[in-house]
């Protein structure tokens, strides 16, 4: 009803306006929470989907690496999908009758604005590093999971700089505090792009996790569901073996914190556009990703722990 075009890339202000619009259009289901502020004082806005009560919850975030614009766009499409399908799609209805969903569409708002106004290739936060001329920390090397280990740089000018200490980035710290204070998050799913991967822990070490068999089967089912729509080919496995060893990542932290269902998606580019995925691929990307997400969320709903 807002006339918002989900098949286009938008400014941060437009995304925030549409989040408000969703909360206004579905007042009994959707609300907006601010879980913190970024380094440059932009709000960390989360959409909460809840039918009421104190339910276990699923966490979804997108856009921690700001230049991966298809992820922020996918998150917003997903928000609209969840809201509009509740009461119509039995699976989503049953999910939201059992669990809440928290969705953070723009995890790195400063980086997103910077990537739209100054440097399209920016992927880090915008924090000032004492003693360095360079700005920003890779927020997916900043979590307290093997912090500072292999696959993260100690050079503040590097795109994979881990930061001065774990949780030094207020954007990361805000999520950690929210997850801890909630106390009943059962799944942690983060959206990145590109490469078409569906990964589970670990990245900071290359050992097999205790829940390997379950997560591997589930991730393969999710990837299969995703592929079924447009044939997009996904690889599935632990971060360490399907990309490379990388320390300080979010899903390693969430898994070690006790959130068994921790996954990271790397969405499309299937057509050699890299981070510059044409806007006409946003909706197909979101549609196929939704099938993968739904598979995971249904499993989480049906396997309480």
């Amino acid at each position, binding site marked *: 009803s807002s*006339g918002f075009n989900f098949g286009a890339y938008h400014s941060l202000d437009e995304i925030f306006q549409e989040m408000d619009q969703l909360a206004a259009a579905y007042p009994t289901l959707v609300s907006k929470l601010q879980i913190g502020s970024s380094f440059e004082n932009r709000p960390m806005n989360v959409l909460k989907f809840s039918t009421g009560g104190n339910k276990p919850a699923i966490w979804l975030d997108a856009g921690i690496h700001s230049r991966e614009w298809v992820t922020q766009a996918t998150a917003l499409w997903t928000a609209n999908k969840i809201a509009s399908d509740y009461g119509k799609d039995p699976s989503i209805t049953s999910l939201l009758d059992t669990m809440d969903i928290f969705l953070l569409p723009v995890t790195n708002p400063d980086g997103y604005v910077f990537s739209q106004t*100054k440097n399209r290739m920016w992927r880090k936060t915008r924090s000032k590093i004492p003693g360095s001329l360079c700005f920003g920390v890779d927020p997916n090397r900043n979590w307290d999971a093997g912090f500072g280990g292999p696959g993260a740089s100690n050079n503040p000018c590097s795109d994979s700089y881990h930061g001065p200490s774990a949780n030094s980035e207020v954007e990361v710290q805000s999520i950690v505090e929210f997850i801890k204070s909630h106390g009943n998050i059962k799944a942690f799913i983060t959206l990145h792009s590109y490469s078409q991967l569906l990964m589970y822990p670990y990245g900071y070490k290359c050992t097999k996790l205790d829940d390997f068999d379950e997560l591997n089967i589930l991730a393969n089912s999710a990837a299969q569901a995703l592929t079924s729509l447009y044939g997009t080919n996904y690889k599935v496995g632990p971060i360490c073996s399907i990309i490379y060893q990388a320390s300080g990542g979010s899903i390693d932290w969430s898994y070690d914190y006790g959130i068994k269902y921790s996954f990271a998606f790397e969405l499309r580019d299937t057509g050699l556009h*890299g981070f*510059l995925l044409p*806007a006409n691929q946003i909706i197909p990307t979101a549609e196929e990703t939704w099938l993968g997400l739904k598979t995971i969320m249904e499993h989480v709903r049906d396997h309480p722990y």
Partner: protein
Amino acid sequence: RETFVGHQVLEIIPRNEEQIQNLEQLEAQDHLEIDFWRSPTVPEQTVHVRIPFSSLQDVKIFLESQGIAYSVMIKDLQVLLDEENEEMLMNQRQER
């Protein structure tokens, strides 16, 4: 706004561990200001790297000297960015 005129994105497929190590050496050379979009991981897996115009010659010479095959994935990044920007402006106008 920073421009990326003349930046190219190369697609590289390392054939063996030695070539992966060569690419890692390349990545460590800060002065080249190259940006791996998809980093080298295992042999035969595609690598994508953005290279500023000023480093193109050096990088291509390095790859050729090491016998590492590559092709140009994006010929001029700025052309794609201009298209993207134009599309965003058009969408904003339509939504208003």
